[in-house]
């Protein structure tokens, strides 16, 4: 297993290199730059600005400089936020996105697994239809609709929460519920499907025949296999949840990385775009690796290859 993990980690290096290179050049070919503003800067000022950030050097030189700094862990200065570096911004914002992500994941798993298991064991009853409809609704309603609706009801009408912000524990509730609900819907559908497939297999019948209780059959025997599709879904989903959601962070005014990720592209903040892309790519790769390991653990038929 150790060899498997090491090999996969080594494979990560060329993948990241391709991503860095593609992003570096793609963002440069987009019209407009970090200093493009409605009130035009004079040519002299623009020259001095470009000299300060090294944008006056030939593009290949800038690329090599960037790679050199990257190897030393330096993601460079932000173009937009003058007194902060990309390292500082990521260190500052990532924990917030992680926290929001963990709360949302808790909501997604609790609600999603519950609904999915209930729907599967009461297949084709009203309970199944109810759970499936809730899940379908969750998938269909986008976060930018659900978020403001929750704010309207719980913050403006009932006055239980702040409309936005990230100050106290209560400020976690609405964003986590909004983001969690969407993922919960997917988890519920995948769990239901996975459970149905497993519940129809011979070993479940054997377990029942041996007199195992329904609880034991579901939780001990069926759930482990039924979770497989959920686990493969969760890899990329967790990477998405943890690196922050632009929509949720904007609606609820949360100081997370998701907004930086999107806004950096609008601002042509070249270094911040690269920094967030690298982080996101690395997270997806690592989490996919974790998923593969967990799948082998859940499914005895698989082996590390």
């Amino acid at each position, binding site marked *: 297993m150790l060899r498997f993990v090491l090999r996969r980690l080594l494979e990560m290096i060329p993948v990241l290199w391709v991503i860095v290179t593609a992003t570096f050049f793609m963002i440069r070919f987009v019209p407009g730059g970090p200093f493009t503003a409605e009130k*035009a800067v004079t040519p002299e000022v623009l020259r001095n600005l470009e000299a300060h950030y090294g944008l006056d050097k030939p593009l290949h030189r800038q690329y090599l400089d960037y790679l050199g700094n990257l190897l030393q862990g330096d993601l460079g200065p932000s173009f937009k936020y003058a007194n902060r570096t990309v390292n500082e911004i990521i260190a500052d914002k990532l924990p917030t996105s992680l926290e929001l992500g963990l709360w949302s994941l808790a909501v997604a798993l609790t609600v999603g697994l*519950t609904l999915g298991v209930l729907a599967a064991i009461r297949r084709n009853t009203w309970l199944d239809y109810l759970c499936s409809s809730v899940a379908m609704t969750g998938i269909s309603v986008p976060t930018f609709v659900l978020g403001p609706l929750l704010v309207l009801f719980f913050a403006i009408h009932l006055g239980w929460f702040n409309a936005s912000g990230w100050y106290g524990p209560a400020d976690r509730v609405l964003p986590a*519920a909004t983001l969690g609900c969407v993922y919960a819907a997917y988890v519920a559908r995948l769990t239901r499907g996975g459970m149905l497939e497993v519940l129809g297999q011979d070993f479940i019948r054997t377990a029942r025949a041996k007199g195992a209780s329904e609880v034991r059959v579901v939780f001990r025997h069926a759930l482990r296999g039924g979770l497989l599709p959920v686990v493969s879904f969760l890899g990329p989903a967790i990477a998405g949840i943890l690196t922050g959601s632009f929509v949720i962070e904007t609606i609820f005014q*949360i100081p997370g990385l998701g*907004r930086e990720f999107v806004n950096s592209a*609008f601002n042509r903040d070249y270094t911040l775009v690269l920094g967030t892309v690298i982080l996101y790519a690395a997270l997806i790769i690592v989490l996919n690796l974790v998923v593969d390991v967990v799948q082998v653990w859940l499914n005895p038929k698989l082996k590390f290859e």
Partner: protein
Amino acid sequence: MRPTTLACCLALGLIVGLAGCGRSEKPAAPAATGATPAKAPMIFRVGNGSEVQDLDPQTVTGVPEHKVIMALFEGLVTENPKDLSPMPGLAESWTISADGLVYTFTLRPNLRWSNGDPITAPEIVESFRRILSPSLASEYAYLVYNFVAGARDYYEGRLPDFAQVGFKAPDARTFVVTLNHPTPYLLKIMASHYSWWPVPTHIIAQHGPLDRKRLPWTKPGNLVGSGPFVLESWEPNKLISVVRNPHYWDAATVKLDAIHFYPTEDLATDERMFRTGQVDMTYELPNTKIDAYRRDYPESLQIDPYLGVYFYRCNTARPPLNDKRVRQALALAIDREAIVKHVTRGDEQPAYAVSYPGNSGYTARARLTGTIADAQRLLAEAGYPGGKGCPTIELVYNTSQNHRAIAEAIQQMWRKHLGVNVELRNEEWKVYIDMQQTKNFMMQRGGWIADYLDPHVFFEIWESDSGNNNTNWSSPEYDRLLHAALAAKTDAERYELYQQMDAILVDELPVIPIYYYTKVAARSKRIKGFYPTLLDNHPYKYIHLAD
């Protein structure tokens, strides 16, 4: 049944657990200096648009930055809260030489930075040396070097010795500025624009070379200013909090104990924060909310005139817009009253000239006048009777609901009255600006918001070599008048020259004016000492909150 019960308990537990956290406290109120202990501190909470780039008055651009910097720094002259006219700030008085070229300021006695260190004239000179350093690459350096003797040469490296530049400090309390040419609105720029506000160079030097960009001197704990408030905390994308500056020269006038600036990038979020009472004032109000506010919260809806003009920019090098008769026909076929009444709905004023009416006592006499029939005649004269043979006009705007609605209305008007086809195209902000600055467009939506309170601000941009003209239009006569206006001895003489320039603009129409902006916001009735001003600047020291 047991699994069902278990699952229900789990789900219920989570919901109760999350909801049970209860409503949180707002961020802890900073200790109020000078307030009576029985009273809660008076905190003004405002939505402040997008997150600020930085708080260094010499390197930032942008309105959210301006709003915070106004609390932290002050210029030699400052703004009257009611009409923004210049009044004494760090300087208690000044004299202007007879030729209008030399301004001599006398600083107030015992002037102090927010850390208690004295503010002296030599340090103010040093501060201007900093903004003119090429390596600082200040984006607003031109607002200084366009006026001050020798400053441009120093900035561009032709003049190595800063002593030759027109900033002098004969003694600790006297500061002298020498200009290239008389600039009748210099004091207005000094009062309203932060590029002219001194920074504490002795503090900045503690963090690194004075002319180096991105020094950490603006972080909380480091930042030292001269304004009525001092930075207490700055949590990016969360909150900027400023509290009273005990060393401010006019601290007795300051009534607020603190101001909390909330970054509110999303206007809808900003508006919801206003409704739950998290902010006393929004940064703006989405147009779609105006009708609802008129109906449900008329007392909170504030619509003030705003010194800016919304227009369509023509590329005068591309047919058919290279023919001024086509531009005139298009301009006459727009029903501006209908647009402000039914589309923008924010009490905007229809614009029949380019310059803003009633700005510092100046209103253009020249006006767009003519009927639809005149428009049709002009188009026919240009060779496109009934729009026949007229190339399709591509109209570009930056992605926004508002701009699209206006463009669609005008597209209909032009099709109906002139038979001219218009193709609408939206572009992301930076692409749109890039197209504008490389003049790679046929017609583009545009706007100009004034930086300072003088008619000149609406004329300088159409000078032939102005970086903001971007229309391929140039007129030697217009340029000559602009320079003559700068040399004019009196405002009356100067305004007469502006009248001639307005007449040229209305005739030539490099841009087709549509309406003058208004500033629409939701504002609590508790806010006092807050007056509508054309630049939407509101000096904080006069503001207080009623109970």
